[in-house]
């Protein structure tokens, strides 16, 4: 049976600046998400991931195109209507957790519930359930500065869920966490999608997250393309020779029309200091990725 479509983005374009300085941060992106689907959006830094997330969550207006959440076109709404959509229909999870410093764990979780008229009583009960489920019971009255990174992110997840939004948008939710906490957060998000039927879009650089995703989308230069989780495009770092996945590599540069990918900043800097030294070891006809300048393995 086909699942209900929660999010539908059609031909989204977002440009910043004008004339010579115009930048197309999001370039004709269409995307749909069904209930219970967990979709990863990956791509290099500056590829437009956060801009896309902001548009999908109604925080930023697209230059053209439209976004429908549960069938409601939020792109056509005026500024006074959008806050209620954000409060009811979208749950945000941020890399920096973004908890409110003055409020306790429970108050942070309940904050969005207070924005919706009449729903506080039920939300208060639900907050209790979320606190237990996310193992925050002993920290219920703690202030954010006393929490660990993992606890903060669990509070942020509970806050995103308190109003039962159909769509969760998470920006690098494991970015500030150690591997254990990161894994734990990912499994919570996975369960939320599968058990509660919430749709989740997750922006990340973390390749460990790929295992729990239903789909992986690759965003580069504002454009989006599908990528299967088991697929990799291995290339070799021209400086140290290490194997790097072109799909997920954060460090890259172009030289004489070819792209090169690096495992670390140090390698990128050495390459930039004397490209010819490294390029001569990588003949253009080597491997199947000659058109991109990368070396396929």
């Amino acid at each position, binding site marked *: 049976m086909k699942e209900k479509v929660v999010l539908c983005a059609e031909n989204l374009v977002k440009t910043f600046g004008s004339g010579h300085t115009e930048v197309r941060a999001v370039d004709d992106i269409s995307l749909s998400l069904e209930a219970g689907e967990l979709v990863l959006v990956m791509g290099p830094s500056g590829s437009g991931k956060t801009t896309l997330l*902001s548009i999908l969550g109604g925080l930023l207006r697209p230059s053209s195109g439209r976004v429908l959440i549960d069938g409601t076109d939020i792109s056509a709404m005026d*500024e006074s209507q959008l806050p209620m959509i954000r409060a009811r229909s979208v749950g*945000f999870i941020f890399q920096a957790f*973004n908890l*409110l410093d003055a409020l306790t764990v429970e108050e942070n979780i309940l904050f969005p519930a207070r924005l919706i008229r009449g729903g506080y009583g039920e939300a208060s009960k639900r907050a209790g359930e979320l606190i237990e489920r996310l193992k925050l019971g002993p920290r219920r009255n703690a202030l954010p500065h006393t929490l660990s990174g993992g606890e903060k992110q669990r509070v942020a997840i509970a806050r995103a869920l308190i109003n039962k939004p159909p769509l969760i948008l998470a920006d690098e939710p494991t970015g500030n966490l150690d591997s254990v906490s990161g894994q734990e957060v990912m499994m919570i998000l996975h369960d939320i999608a599968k058990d509660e039927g919430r749709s989740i879009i997750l922006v990340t650089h973390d390749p460990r997250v790929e295992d729990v995703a239903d789909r992986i989308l690759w965003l580069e230069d504002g454009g989006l393309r599908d990528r299967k989780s088991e697929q990799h495009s291995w290339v070799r770092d021209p400086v140290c020779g290490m194997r790097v996945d072109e799909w997920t590599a954060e460090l890259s540069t172009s030289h004489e029309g070819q792209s090169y990918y690096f495992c670390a900043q140090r390698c990128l800097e050495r390459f930039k200091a004397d490209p010819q030294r490294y390029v001569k070891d990588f003949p253009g006809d080597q491997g199947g990725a000659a058109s991109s300048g990368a070396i396929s393995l």
Partner: protein
Amino acid sequence: MLRWMIKSLFLEPLTLLVAIASAASAFLLIIMFEGIFAGESEQIVAYVRNVKADVWVMQRGVSNMHMATSYLPDWKVRQVSELPGVAGVESILYLNTVVEVADQRWFSYVVGLDVPSEYAGPWAMAEGRDQPAAGEVVVPEVFAHMSQLGIGGTLRVTDREFTIVGLSKGTFSMANSVIFVNKVDLEDIMSSFDITSFMLVKAEPDTTPEQVAAIIEGAVEHVSALPASQFLKNDKRLAMQMGTETIALMTFIGGALAVLLVAFTIYSQVARQRRELAVVKALGVTNRAIYTSVVVQAIGITLASVAVATMIAMALLPALSNLIPAVTMTLTLVSVAKITILGLFVAVIAAYLPARQVARLDPASAFQT
């Protein structure tokens, strides 16, 4: 939302305390100006308020005492005293002039008493006699202390020297103190004999001051007669008018200072909370809710500042009155109410800039790490 904003304020109690203290100092300044103005205004009319007259009678057209000139022939005193409803009349001669004591000069009301005087003279004495004979003067106690004079000391009124025989209480004011001399001496100074400036009339117990005033005006030509309450009101209004512009300027300066301090505090608070404000906008808080919270924060800080300033003023005023006896300060409920209303204006104006800043805040910036 409001709960969060208020809790955020208390997250840094020291900053909040400094903000309240700064704004309170500006309000304290205003309260002090107001207090001095109110105190001096009361003191300017101390004589009119304290003497036990029911009706004041003066030259027609004159309606107050402060800075006024009134001349009546003495025989009209007898005429008034014989009217029905009049229980008694005392007359004074009155001159506004500068009194010289050593190197100091004091602008004063010089009251010439028709001795013996039952109720037109000093209403409270600190020391000495309250009935000056020829060549004698009763001066305010504060005035004497400031000039380092006592009983037996001398001072000059115009070209004549007087010996101090009494020190009165409640008669000093920075604007004009009240000194008492014998009417004969003042007639001599003014080169005007058999005249009176004001008649202080007592009404019969079964007659109201209004009835007596009406009887006097109906029976005696070319005089004005006013019930004491009306006469006091007129005098006070004039005294207030004379200082209103100065006090308005001082209030404006103090108010502007308070606006700056409260605005700076709220602005800093909003600046510190930029990230969190972007987050709450992303979570669905409306601009209107944020504006309201910013205004409420400003009002909270301002009212707390006004309260602190009022409490400090209440504690300081009695001490200051003892420390600086030359200055009369009063803190009235009306002053506190006026300053509270001013404080609310201050809060709304102070919240304007931060509210604009919040309106421009991009909720998408919540994603910035």
